[in-house]
């Protein structure tokens, strides 16, 4: 039996193995979201994809983003989508299908978007950051400081945006 050095490709690092696991999970979730015939299973697939994206954020050392992803997307948005399905008559009774007559045009637009993203990924000279990235504690601290200094106005506008969303939700749901 040849040694591991005889392999024609370099052995993946631990981080690469974890990335492949997480990416596989994300893609599986995305495929369930897009292809499963039952709309409820689509929603559950979306949760899996959201979790996978959070894992990617952790690998990219964007830990605050990862926590936000789990708290907001997995915790709240997924719940909202589930409720939206449960209170829609056509989706709770009878059979649903994940495709409709817009399927072809949507597929074309998605494919074009995929091409654009792939082109970006290949052609842009991404800056490479080595090990000198600040620790996650420092990054979250910087974020907290920027909320009240550099990005004060966007931060306060965020409160108004949330207020508008709150009023809109109440108006919509009470009619």
């Amino acid at each position: 039996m040849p040694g591991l050095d005889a392999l024609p490709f370099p052995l993946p690092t631990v981080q690469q193995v974890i990335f492949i696991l997480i990416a596989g999970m994300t893609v599986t979730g995305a495929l369930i979201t897009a292809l499963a015939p039952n709309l409820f299973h689509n929603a559950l697939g979306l949760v899996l994809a959201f979790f996978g994206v959070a894992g990617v954020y952790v690998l990219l050392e964007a830990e605050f983003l990862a926590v936000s992803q789990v708290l907001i997307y997995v915790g709240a948005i997924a719940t909202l989508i589930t409720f939206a399905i449960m209170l829609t008559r056509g989706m709770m009774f009878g059979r649903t299908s994940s495709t409709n007559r817009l399927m072809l045009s949507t597929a074309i637009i998605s494919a074009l978007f995929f091409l654009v993203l792939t082109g970006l990924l290949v052609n842009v000279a991404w800056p490479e950051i080595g090990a000198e990235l600040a620790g996650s504690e420092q990054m979250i601290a910087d974020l907290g400081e920027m909320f009240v200094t550099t990005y004060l106005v966007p931060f306060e506008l965020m409160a108004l945006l949330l207020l508008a969303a709150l009023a809109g939700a109440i108006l919509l749901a009470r009619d």
Partner: protein
Amino acid sequence: MAIDYLPLLIVLIVAALFAAIALVVPALLGPHRANKQKLEPYESGIIPFSDARRRFPVKFYLVAMLFILFDIEVIFLYPWAGVLRDLRDNYSIWLALAPMGFFLFVLIVGLLYEWKKGALDWK
């Protein structure tokens, strides 16, 4: 470091295995003698009286929507709370407190509006 999250990944894998084993092993080893009573959904001993697939009141949607909004609020509080003391020392106590005070004030106005509109009542 991302490697600090390795225990979390291990817990996730163990949890997934646990769920998979709990589903697969009984299906393989357990006897399959189903009858009508056994196939009914277990509802704490209460006999099911209607289909579970019914439309849910829109109230649930409103509650989920409000939950998202205040969830986002908490996300913004977290980095700020971590540097509160540094902000006080580096700038001033007012610069540390006033921006978040206004942020919370706006959302409390929203909460009061919601309260007055009766969105919090579960009738």
